[in-house]
């Protein structure tokens, strides 16, 4: 990667869409990204900073930024807002205790000017776990239906098995300008 690559990724590009992946710590952002790029997901450490992946989805080139979600570094999410074309928000569907916290963070994001109007994909992750809430239940608890200022979608998925990931990404690219 290197610093120069970071600068090249900062560059506004017409041919590459910039996708930001956010969500609480341990929601599975990095795992989703690794699974989407067919990488080994058996040893994933909490992301301290960020990971960047280039994905090809249909005819789209995606430049995907996965940002660490621990509480102490959430204030720095803003570092990465500039030029974002779509937001993916990842939720641990089995972590009922922190669903409210996750909803609050999402609400704050939706109020950010720099993310104004851009499409939102919510991944209701960890559906492979027994105690997981359904995508429907999560949408209700987070009042996603009240979102009026952008197109959005919630997709049930499991980063572990890969179920639902492609469906989500396919929806996401339909929202991007051709």
């Amino acid at each position, binding site marked *: 990667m290197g*610093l120069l690559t970071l600068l090249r990724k900062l560059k506004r590009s017409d041919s590459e869409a910039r996708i930001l992946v956010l969500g609480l710590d341990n929601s599975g952002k990095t795992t989703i990204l690794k699974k989407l790029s067919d990488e080994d997901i058996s040893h994933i450490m909490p992301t301290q900073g960020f990971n960047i992946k280039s994905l090809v989805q249909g005819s789209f080139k995606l430049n995907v930024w996965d940002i660490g979600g621990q509480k102490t570094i959430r204030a720095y999410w803003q570092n990465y807002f500039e030029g974002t074309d779509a937001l993916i928000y990842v939720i641990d569907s089995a972590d009922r205790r922190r669903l409210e916290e996750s909803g609050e963070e999402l609400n704050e994001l939706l109020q950010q000017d720099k993310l104004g109007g851009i499409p939102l994909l919510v991944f209701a992750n960890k559906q492979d776990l027994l105690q997981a809430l359904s995508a429907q239940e999560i949408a209700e608890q987070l009042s996603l239906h009240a979102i009026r200022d952008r197109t959005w979608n919630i997709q049930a998925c499991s980063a572990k098995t890969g179920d639902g990931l492609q469906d989500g990404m396919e929806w996401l690219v339909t929202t991007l300008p051709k």
Partner: protein
Amino acid sequence: MKLKRFLLRYYPPGIILEYERSSGQLESKAIDLLTLKEDSDTDALASHIIREEPLLRESHHLLLSRLIRKLAAKCEDHLSQRYYLYRTLRAHILPLTNCAFNKDGSKFITGSYDRTCRVWDTNTGDEVLALEGSKNVVYALAFNNPFGDKIATGSFDKTARLWDSTTGRCLHIMRGHEAEIVCVAFNPQGTRLATGSMDHRAVLWDVETNTQLAVLQGHQAEIVSVHFNTDGDKIVTGSFDMTAKMWDVETGKCIHTLKGHTGEISTTQFDWTGDYCITGSIDKTCRLWDTGSGACMDTFRGHTDEVLDCAFNNVGNKIVTASADATARVYNVATAQCSAIMVGHDKEISKCAFSPNGHRVLTASSDTTCRLWSVDTGDCIQVLQGHTDEVFSCAFNYEGDTLITASKDNSCKVWKECEASAPLDAHNDKQIDT
């Protein structure tokens, strides 16, 4: 004119004559000894200098040859030289960006995604200051060397800031860029600051008054590199528009556009004399340019992937290039021949630097290591292991006895030269205390 005293400059080797004008004003002039070697005939050299330099008399011969011998000793290649991990610094809470030493190496600075620049004491490893105030990533930074009393930072928040390096006070906020600032440089006189930005422009600032002296306009894409020459009268900028431009500092006018690369420019640098500059490019080559005419003198080929960094050694007779092909190469400037290929990293090399005496190259790689190489043979002398994520930047101090490496793993590591007699593995950052 009356000679007052001699000053030594080790890297690049030179003797500075401090003299008094008839008006009583103190001035100085430098005698560059760029071709000095450890086995140079110092007596003959001293005689030659005395013949050429009106300030010097035959009576200075003994002293002068002693000084030259001292400089020559600094050129020696210490084959057994190794470094041990001295400290790991973990005050940053997000990935680091760039790092730099002050001239005497007593302090260094690191930038980070955590929006701070931190000032460190090289000897104790203590954080001396946290420069806070930037609203986004602190990406570019510089000391106003050789003075070292000021620090400039450039941020993704579109501002540059000037700081007092002793108190940490923010002296100026430089506003005007319309996109991320990704490179900053002081002129060697310390009076001006140049900033380069993703907004395609570079700006020249007066350090004292914080006024914009010139906007260097003309690049068609992001500027990612900005450097002054030694005299401080020219700037070279490198851009994603595949060109570099040379600018007159006084007028802010573009003197030359260096055209020829077929990919984005990754870096630019002047040599010590200011007669030449080099550009590295995504097109897998590095080019050497004559700064007088703007003509391309040579194209250094051989890399099989993007050239991400390149640098002159201190005397300007060699360059090193770092590439995404995981190798570094050393080229002889005069012959344009590749004299060494450094093979060993597993992933791309994003930064490279010569040691002050020019015998070593330090490389930083995405494979989480830094490596030290022999410039003569291209052999890997040491692998600096310990970081757990990509190493973004690295630097030698002026003496060449301390290294810093800054990583995406949120830490910075300080490495110090081993005592000649001590066995390598006896050193460990936990055991060594000062």
